[in-house]
Every structure is written in structure tokens, then in C-alpha cells.
């Protein structure tokens, strides 16, 4: 039945992967066994590095690099159009000892790759000397112990996108606090629309909102991971959204899917608590609403507060099995610090640069027209400056999101509380980490 087809394709895909593996190892000169010192390129030797990335428009800066560096050619392979879906393949490739040289890896999932011994520690190659070229807290996201495991590329400070025309028409002011947001949701509901959706399976955004409230999900104590999902700030966020859902002030459909895009296009959903990279998503999927959107700061828990958070952001990492790690590192640094490269990345809508220099040098307002001429990036730049920089990610974030999503969905459907989900998922996460052979405790 269903899986006869899948089966066949899996087998074929597996065969192709095996063939590709042989081809890749076959064309090398050997010497990439475990435990050998980093490999070097001979002077004048032409090599090709492979780079797995989903970032829209990533080909352009890579083309520029290839043009400038004939000896070190980089080949982009777009494994998936959706971030997150290529991590499975990366993990499999690491296990099969056949990963690419470089990969696009988001901040939250870096520790998961470290557990796999999948990433190369770039510190022995001198990566630390680039430290000051990046924003400190973002650089710190890829530092574990004394190791540097990736070069940061971009972050995603959070804000509120809204349809200014509809908010004006309905006489609803842009909410500045979460109380005002609830009031706005009520007002919008009276007009027959829903202010937003609370997508229960979107762990990323929930983490961002908890981050803003001051949560600290992962901590370390000695060599033990402390998981603290069930803390006061996260409970506050869970209670808040549960109340909105129970009052039927927000939808609960999945976000960033066709039905949601349709709602954005028609104005059935006139707002989105999104992230700086969301500009490209809105402009690309609701082109008919051009000129009507504005960006506003994330609503605050305290009136006049300045607490912001980050959703997304990624790095360029070098895989441990890369045959030419030094060249791979050079490319990763160039990609994320060279002003021309950053300008091209921004055109593609990749978020806010992690490099200090590139940040100032480029005009981030690439699609002002869509936002009615508003210098909307200033909103996100200001948010980025106030992101709580003590937030840390731990291993198994993907599993945590999945458990959170499953349990939130259950709770919303069966009438359980979102708060009780936190207790449950915290215990599950500690168990998951222990099952992975790590020391883990519940935060008290």
C-alpha cells in the first residue's frame, strides 16, 4: 500500500547515497581517517568544497567567492527548501562519514551536532582571532568549552508585523504591551478577523516568547545539564497564550503553511509575532498586500520595557570530516564578514548579520516598499540590541520542540493546561538527555 512506493524510493535513495559516498571518497587522495591532523591543500591545488544550505539567495555570495577564489571552488547543494529538514540528512551523513564540508546550521541545533562529534573544532585553526568581528552573544552561541564550532551568520530579533491599514480601519492601536495585545485581539475578533494564530507545534516561536519573558531553559552546572522549562517566565507565557486560545481570540492553525498564507493574503489574520527574516516571508507569500504592512516592537510584559528575543539565526559550520578544513573556515569567515557577501545575503532575506562591520555597512531596508516605506529594520535593529544575551541552547532542542508541540496540541484539543505541559516536557527532556548518555537534572 502506501509504503511500497516509499520503500522503493528509500532503497533507491539509499543506493544513490552509497554511490555518492563511494564517488566522494574515491576522488580523494585518502588520508581522511579518524584522528589525523587537519588536512592541508597543496599550494596551487584546485579543490571543491560542498556546502549544504537552504538560505534563499545563498548562491550569489558563493558565486562571488568562486569568482574571486578559483582554487577553492564552493558548490552549494540545496538539500531542502525548509530549514530543519536537512538536519536529518546531515546527521545521517555524519554517521555515514560522508558529510559535506560546510553546512548551514541554526543556533539551537548546534549542540545536537556536537553530540554527534559531527562538527570540527575551529579553535585549533585559529578561528578565535575572528571573535571580535562578531556580536559577542552570537559568537558565544557556537562556543562550547574551549571549542569554537561554527562561524555565526545571522540572528533573528523578534518583532510584531501588522497590517497598518486594517488596524487603522478598525481603530485598533498597535499593541505595546501584552495586555494591549490581548485587547487588540478582542477588537480584531469583533471585526470578524483573528489577530493571529498560536501554532501549537511551533516550538521555535514559543521559545522566543519565553526568552523574552526571561526564561532560561538550559543551564549547566559542572558537567551536568540543567533543564528548566517549567520556570516562572515560561509559565507566564504559557498561561497567557492558553487564555487567548480559550477565549477564542487566536486561531490555532499551523503557521507558515498554505492556510496561514491565505489568511495573510486576505487579511483574515492581520498580524504576526515574527522575526526580522519574516519580511521576506511576508513579501514573498502575500505580494498583494504590498505597502500595507508595518513592523512594531514586540509587546512588553512591563509598559515601557525593553525586553526582546531572538527567533532563528544560523551559522556556517565546518563538518569534522571535511577534507580541507582550513579553506572551509576561510570561506565561512569570508561569507559572513565580507561586506559584499553580507549585502548579497541581506538581499536574499537571511536576517540580521552577526558581523558588526557588515551590520553598519549595509542598508537592511531591502523591501521598504512592502512596508509602506517604513524603515522597519530599525525596529529589529533596536530589538537586536536588547536581546537577553544569557540564553543558551542545549542538546536535543529538536526533540524538545517536538515534545512540546505534541503536548501543546493534545492540551489544546483535550482541554489540558499548557502549564502542565511544561512540567511534563521538562521531565521528558531530562530523560531524553540521560538516554543520550549525558548527565542531566531538572532545574528547581
Amino acid at each position, binding site marked *: 500500500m*502506501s509504503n511500497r512506493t516509499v520503500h522503493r524510493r528509500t532503497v533507491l535513495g539509499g543506493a544513490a547515497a552509497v554511490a555518492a559516498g563511494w564517488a566522494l571518497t574515491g576522488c580523494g587522495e585518502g588520508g581522511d581517517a579518524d584522528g589525523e591532523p587537519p588536512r592541508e591543500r597543496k599550494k596551487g591545488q584546485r579543490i571543491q568544497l560542498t556546502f549544504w544550505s537552504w538560505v534563499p539567495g545563498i548562491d550569489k555570495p558563493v558565486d562571488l567567492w568562486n569568482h574571486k577564489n578559483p582554487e577553492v571552488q564552493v558548490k552549494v547543494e540545496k538539500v531542502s527548501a525548509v530549514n530543519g529538514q536537512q538536519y536529518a540528512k546531515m*546527521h545521517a551523513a555524519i554517521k555515514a562519514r560522508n558529510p559535506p564540508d560546510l553546512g548551514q546550521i541554526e543556533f539551537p541545533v548546534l*549542540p545536537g551536532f556536537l553530540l554527534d562529534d559531527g562538527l570540527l573544532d575551529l579553535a585549533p585553526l585559529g578561528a578565535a582571532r575572528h571573535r571580535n568581528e562578531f556580536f559577542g552573544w552570537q559568537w558565544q552561541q557556537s562556543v562550547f568549552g574551549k*571549542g569554537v564550532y561554527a562561524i555565526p551568520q545571522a540572528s533573528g530579533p523578534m518583532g510584531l508585523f501588522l497590517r497598518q491599514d486594517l488596524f487603522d480601519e478598525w481603530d485598533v492601536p498597535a499593541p505595546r504591551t501584552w495586555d494591549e495585545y490581548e485587547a487588540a485581539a478582542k477588537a480584531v475578533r469583533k471585526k470578524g478577523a483573528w489577530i493571529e494564530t498560536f501554532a501549537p507545534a511551533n516550538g521555535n516561536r514559543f521559545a522566543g516568547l519565553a526568552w523574552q519573558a526571561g526564561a532560561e531553559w538550559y543551564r549547566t552546572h559542572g558537567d551536568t545539564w540543567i533543564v528548566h522549562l517549567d520556570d516562572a517566565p515560561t509559565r507566564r507565557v504559557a498561561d497567557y497564550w492558553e487564555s487567548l486560545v480559550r477565549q477564542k481570540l487566536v486561531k490555532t*492553525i499551523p503557521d507558515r503553511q498554505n492556510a496561514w498564507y491565505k*489568511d495573510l493574503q486576505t487579511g483574515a489574520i492581520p498580524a504576526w509575532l515574527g522575526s526580522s527574516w519574516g519580511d521576506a516571508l511576508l513579501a514573498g507569500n502575500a505580494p498583494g498586500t504590498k505597502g500595507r504592512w508595518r513592523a512594531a516592537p514586540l509587546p512588553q510584559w512591563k509598559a515601557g520595557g525593553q525586553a526582546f528575543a531572538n527567533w532563528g539565526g544560523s551559522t556556517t559550520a565546518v563538518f569534522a570530516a571535511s577534507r580541507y578544513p582550513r579553506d572551509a573556515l576561510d570561506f565561512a569567515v569570508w561569507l559572513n564578514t565580507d561586506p559584499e557577501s553580507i549585502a548579497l545575503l541581506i538581499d536574499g532575506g537571511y536576517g540580521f548579520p552577526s558581523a558588526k562591520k557588515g551590520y553598519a555597512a549595509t542598508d537592511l531596508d531591502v523591501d521598504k516598499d512592502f512596508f509602506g516605506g517604513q524603515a522597519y529594520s530599525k525596529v529589529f535593529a533596536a530589538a537586536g540590541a536588547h536581546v537577553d544575551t544569557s540564553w543558551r541552547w542545549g542538546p536535543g532542542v*529538536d526533540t524538545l520542540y517536538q515534545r512540546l508541540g505534541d503536548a501543546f496540541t493534545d492540551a489544546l484539543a483535550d482541554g489540558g493546561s499548557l502549564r502542565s505541559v511544561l512540567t511534563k516536557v521538562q521531565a521528558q527532556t531530562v530523560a531524553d538527555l540521560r538516554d543520550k548518555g*549525558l548527565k542531566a537534572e531538572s532545574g528547581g
Partner: protein
Amino acid sequence: MSRDTPSRPDPVPRGAARKDTGRRPRRATRTEARNARAAAGFVLPFLALFVLCFLAPLGYALYESLLRTERTGPLGLGGRAHQVFAGLANYAHALADDRFLAGFGRVLLFGAVQVPLMIVLATALALLLESASARGVPFFRSAFFLPYGVPGVIASILWGFLYVPGISPLVKIAESMGWQVDFLSRTAVLWSLANIVTWQFTGYNMLVLIAQLKAVPGELYEAARIDGANAWQVARHIKIPLLRPALVLTGVFSIIGTLQLFAEPMVLRPLASSIDSGFTPNLHAYSEAFVGNNQQVAAAEAVLLALVACAVSFGFLRLAGGRAGERAGERG
């Protein structure tokens, strides 16, 4: 190769009529030796593929399922991960997981409803197309079979568009008639998936059944007509009993397919929050392997899934075979 050799298991199905060919045991001649070599030549490619694509992955999964990863280094990061023997710990872990067990319950319920429905539908289509008065048979045969040519993933995307509220024309039509339908709600989503699977595989099963019908000797129909049987009686008393082997075959295929349900829920999952990460056992194993990166637990789950599929399909075969025996006995 005598059938009288007592030490050999009886190759003739229980209850089936025995035919004595009258051959006696004798020494293998040169022709037979050559035939045996030729047979080996034909069987070898199959065996090679069978070992490479079936036994080897199975063995690897078994091996993986018995291991556990231990990590060293500060916080378990950047150190060395090595694998140690874990006994049945991964199986215990899988069996202690509510979601994994719930997935089994779900696919068994799915199969109990969808498989009979699909087989009945496929049988009806096959009988209609093979009836004497059917017109445009090649066209309809292709039309019914066509969905099978659409890969499961594409079929799911296609149906996804028809299910998602806000986009779906079906939902819109229902709403205009005053019905509130949600194909992706928690209660409905399993049957929305069943619909996709039925749409895809009814034509395939129909074709298997038609092939069996084609093998029915024409004299039987002729005899029935002479006896004054109408079309319904021919279908009821000749075609359906003779379809039994094909029905058993399609039934087993469908049961195995049900347990392996994966592509449809996987594709619909982002659209429907009612499908969780452990919706079916296969999806659960996938999540363990590729989201949680716990290959060993996933391997244990895959082995458990294979065992259940084995038990259920052999159980079905026994049941179907037993009945066939009784029937044959009645007739005899």
C-alpha cells in the same frame, strides 16, 4: 522429488485435491542437473538482492537496536562517543513510550476499516470491468489504475490542498451548504488519510484481481450459462470463490502497507496539528531517528514493527488459508 517422501512437508495446501502424477523417485538425469544449474542462475540475482536489500538492513537494524551510546567529555560535548551493548534496553524504552503504542493502535484501527473497504471496492471494480456487458474497459481500467502512478508524497500534497480549510474547494462547497467540515480535525484526520490510501491503491488491487479473473477458464462461465446462471450468480458462485488467492494476496499486501503507513501522515503533518510526531509507528521511528537522532531506539522500534507486521500478516494468512480449506472441504 516424489510427493510420497514422508520426511518432506506436504507441499499441497490442506484440503486441495491431490493429483497423483504417477511419477516414481528416480536418479537425477543430466538434463535435470542442467535444469538445476539454470534454475540457480535465475535464482541467484534474486538471492543477491534479497541479501543486500533485505537481510543486510534487517541484520544491521537488529545489531543497532542492541547498542547504546556512551559519551565522555565536558557536558558530553566534544568528547568521544562510543557504543556499548545495551541488551534489550532500547526495546524497553520503545515499549514504555505511550505515543509509540498509541501509533500501533491507530494503524490497526485504520487497517481494520480501510483494508476491507478497499478490497471490497477493488473487487467490485474488477467484477464490473470483467463483466460481459462492460464497455470502455481499457479506458476505465487505466483510469482506475492511474492514481497508483502518482507517488504517495504527491498524492498526499494533492489531497492536502483539498483538506486544508481556507483553500479547499471541498470545504467551501460544504460550507455553502451549511456544513462545517474539518478534514484535519483529530477525529477526522485518520479517515482523511484512509481516503488518500484508498484512492491510491484501489486501482492497483483491482488490477491484481483482474489478472486472477483472466486466469479463470472460460468453460466454467459457459457451464454456468448453460445451467441458467445470471451475471450476479456467476459473480457470486464462480468469480468470487476463484478470486480467493488474489484476495488473500492483496489483503496481505494491504495489511503490511497499513502498518508501514508513513508518507501520507508525514506530508500532512505540517498542515494538521492533529497529526503528532508518533502518529504511526513508522513516523515515530522516523522521529526518533531523524529528529531525536536516536538511531538505536529507532532501530528497536523498526524491529518491533517488523515483528508485528509479520505476526499480523501470517495470522491473516492462517485465517484465510483455514477458511479456504473449510470451503474446499465443503465442496469436496
